């Protein structure tokens, strides 16, 4: 653990310094993202037949597959921002303040990736706005998909507003150290700023955080997204009230994993050991364990109720799930992560940041696989299962697989670019750490003078 005292220079480092590694990452992520854009254009030109999807029923396939699974996965990851903001702002867990903004940005990036998937998944994306918004006043009353569009928009807009409001404070104070070529942007960001507003904005942001925290986990990922599936009685693998909490726990495990990876990357790249401390990783890892436990607990509920004495169709779907290596594999991974995290709380020496990263990556892989499997399995084992002799099985095409890499590239690109424009660690966090409120480390030196 570092004993350096954080200062403004630290949080400005990503803006001021550009390493060779930065350019390499920029190039790689841009290439991957562009590769997917290219493949997507092939899909646009040749139709959705380039995917591995087909019609369920006599079409012998599944209607929705990896695109929809990955869409859910990204929305889940986007929840990282909420958890951290809630922890910091509403629950007073200030130790997580240094990673809160990164997490909020992950929300925007994750939701953008999810939104991108909605468009990629459509047969006629050109009508997405005209057809959906044009009939919104009719469809919102009945279509769960329109509810999703509504709530994801609200979530995105609220998080962006949250970031924009909190950035006013930082950008004003750091303005002189920020690069001049973004001047118009900084002017726009801080328009009408006065010192008096800090207190008011602080209060507004608190309410905003409260609103997002109720809406995003409970009503988005524990609400309208699972309802896309859970409200359809003809799919025993989907139907039922448990999908709300189940989706939420999966979202939270992937969200924490996303934040762990992101924080580690920034810490390593910008030598932020004294800002994003080991303590933060320990805490995040513990939360990952807690959410993983809830995830497994709800899976258990489903397995027990699906096997004990369930209806024919439900029993059939559960049996299919339990005999599939992808399901078993993802559950096993999450269970292994849970065991590790439990072990490292008992025996502290088992903890290492590297192991946390491995756990986080493993969980993200498992949740992606589980989500895609959930979507596919539901469609493969409907109540009306008369079509089972129709030949066909689903395996994602190259384009679908690359879409995952492409959206990851897109998110990485987003961070590489945003980190060049605004500080990704809140000035408040530095002030807080400098103020000596750190948890298990005391600053060695007294407050440093701020460089002019």
């Amino acid at each position, binding site marked *: 653990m570092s004993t350096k005292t954080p200062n403004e220079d630290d949080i400005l480092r990503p803006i001021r310094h550009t390493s060779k590694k930065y350019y390499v990452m920029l190039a790689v992520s841009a290439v991957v993202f562009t590769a997917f854009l290219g*493949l997507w254009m*092939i899909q646009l030109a*040749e*139709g959705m*037949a*380039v*995917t*591995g*999807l*087909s*019609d*369920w*029923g*006599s*079409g*012998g*396939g599944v*209607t*929705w597959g990896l695109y929809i699974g990955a869409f859910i996965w990204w929305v889940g990851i986007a929840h990282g921002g909420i958890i951290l903001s809630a922890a910091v702002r509403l629950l007073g867990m200030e130790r997580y303040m240094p990673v809160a903004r990164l997490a909020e940005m992950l929300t925007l990036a994750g939701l953008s990736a999810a939104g991108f998937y909605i468009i990629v998944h*459509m*047969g*006629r*994306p050109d*009508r*997405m706005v005209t*057809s959906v918004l*044009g*009939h919104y006043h*009719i*469809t919102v009353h*009945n*279509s*769960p*998909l*329109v509810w999703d569009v509504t709530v994801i928009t609200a979530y995105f807009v609220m998080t962006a507003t949250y970031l924009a409001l909190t950035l006013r404070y930082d950008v004003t104070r750091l303005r002189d150290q920020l690069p001049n070529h973004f001047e118009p942007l900084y002017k726009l960001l801080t328009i009408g700023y006065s010192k008096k507003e800090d207190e008011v904005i602080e209060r507004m942001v608190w309410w905003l955080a409260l609103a997002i925290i109720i809406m995003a986990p409970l009503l988005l990922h524990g609400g309208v997204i699972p309802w896309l599936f859970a409200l*359809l*009685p*003809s799919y025993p693998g989907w139907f039922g009230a448990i999908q709300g909490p189940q989706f939420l726990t999966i979202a939270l495990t992937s969200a924490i994993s996303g934040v762990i990876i992101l924080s580690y990357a920034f810490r390593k790249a910008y030598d932020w050991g004294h800002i994003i401390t080991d303590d933060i990783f320990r805490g995040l890892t513990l939360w990952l364990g807690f959410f993983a436990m809830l995830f497994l607990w709800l899976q258990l509920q489903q397995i027990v109720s699906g096997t004990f004495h369930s*209806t*024919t*169709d439900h029993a059939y779907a559960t049996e299919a799930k339990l005999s599939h290596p992808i399901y078993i594999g993802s559950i096993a991974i999450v269970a292994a992560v849970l065991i590790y995290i439990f072990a490292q709380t008992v025996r502290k020496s088992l903890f290492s940041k590297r192991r946390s990263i491995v756990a986080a990556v493993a969980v993200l892989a498992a949740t992606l696989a589980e989500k895609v499997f959930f979507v596919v399995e539901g*469609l493969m084992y*409907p*109540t*009306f*299962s*008369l*079509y*089972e*002799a*129709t*030949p*066909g*099985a689903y*395996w*994602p*095409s*190259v*384009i679908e*697989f690359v879409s995952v890499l492409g959206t990851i590239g897109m998110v990485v690109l987003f961070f590489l670019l945003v980190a060049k424009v605004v500080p990704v660690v809140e000035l408040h966090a530095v002030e807080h750490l400098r103020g000596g409120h750190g948890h298990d480390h005391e600053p060695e030196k007294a407050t440093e003078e701020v460089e002019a």
Partner: protein
Amino acid sequence: MSVDDSVGDHTDDSPAHLDDWEIELRSALEGTEYDADLGVGLAKDAQRLATGELTEAQFRERYDDDVITNLENEDFFELLGAEDADLEIVDDLRAAGGTFLDGLNGVSGNSDTSRREVMKKMSAGAAFLGLGALTAADDGRDPQAAMAAQDDEGGNDTQFGMVIDLERCDGCLGCVEGCYEENNLRAGANWMYVLNYKDEENQRTAEDPGRLVRPCQHCSEAPCEQVCPTTARHTRPEDGLVLTDYDICIGCRYCQVGCPYGVNYFAWDPPRVDEEQHLEENNNHVYDNRDQRVDMRPPRGVMGKCTMCPSRQDGNMGEEAVGTVACMDACDQMGMSAIHFGDLNDPESRPNQYIRHRTAHSRGELEDLDEEGVEVYDDDDDGGVLPGPAPGDDDYDDVPEWLSSNIPSSETGVSTFRLLEEMDTKPNVIYLGDEPGPNAEQLSQEEVEEEAPGYTISYEQLNERSALAMTEPDDHEIVDDRKDVLDESTIGGGIGQ
């Protein structure tokens, strides 16, 4: 396939219901010229019949033939001694009948009888009160009664739908072919699909398979329409057809996911004939009378499914095509007449006429055989296919007066069902024949060919017959493995099973 054994929507089985209707019925009848005691007594016995307390034979013993005939005629009022009924009394009776049916629903939960039997007896019970319409309004099950339920809402009075006689179907796949030709369907987009299955519960085996003819059910509570984020999937108000506006659909495929029957077929890739040419050649056929593009195969990226031929209904395809659908025409041409399309709300429509003829026919046989105690279906010469009047037959349009009454289905000997009724989609396709149970398993064409040769023709044979498939085999081959067709365009992956 039903997994839900509950009966109806009513869970309140308080016996109070049974008393309520009696009081209501009596007070409705008293003070009029009707015989209240006879009315209430009859209704009570009808109820006992439904609960199994009273056997049909006992019931028949209790009332003489005249009474029974009158009951069958639904002529409740005449029976009770009145010449004609005034409307208020009818309303009161209907109110009484509502609680009567509630009572029956509650009671049935306690008996050992199967769900379908209870339903049949319920409609029998309702018929005794002249309440056929209420059974339909109550659960939408009784096809004959459905026609009487029209106009109550003051809205549309046409509901297109089908009666499909599964016992007449011989697996010629004429309907599938007709649909392809009519709509220029792409390979594997089987808007009309015929499945063969084995099902232990129905004694259906690979040697003697069951069959299901599956068009879109054009549900009155269409889940596909409800979930659609754009209103592209909609119900035409004038005739209840569930259609897709190809110019609005965004191709999210939620309708396909929302549909419990699997009747939707997405246009995964661009058709070989380009859009402009298609629209030019088929201008009358792709747009309906509202000028919405809802008919024929969809363009790339949007959803298609069985339309029940709206441009035919609108007269765009000529006067003689109004009231017909391509699959029905094909079925008639093949001499099978298993598909009967028309307005389910019109008592004189083809499906309603057919169902009356069909039930009357088998009822006649039932009466003949009843005395000998012989079951009617097993020893039929025609491989289980019961003869029924076909459109060409002399007596097809000749509906005897007594046939227009609500014949209790318990006496018809023909079971009718609608698919997945427990999903509450209110489908508008009524099947005659056996319903596939929850454990029914589809048989592949190979299995059928092997175990029951001749039971159905193969897709290969169908393609040799189909003009469309012969001219453009790549695009319009009739197949049941659409996944394989689509996999040809899949870029990397998409491995078959």
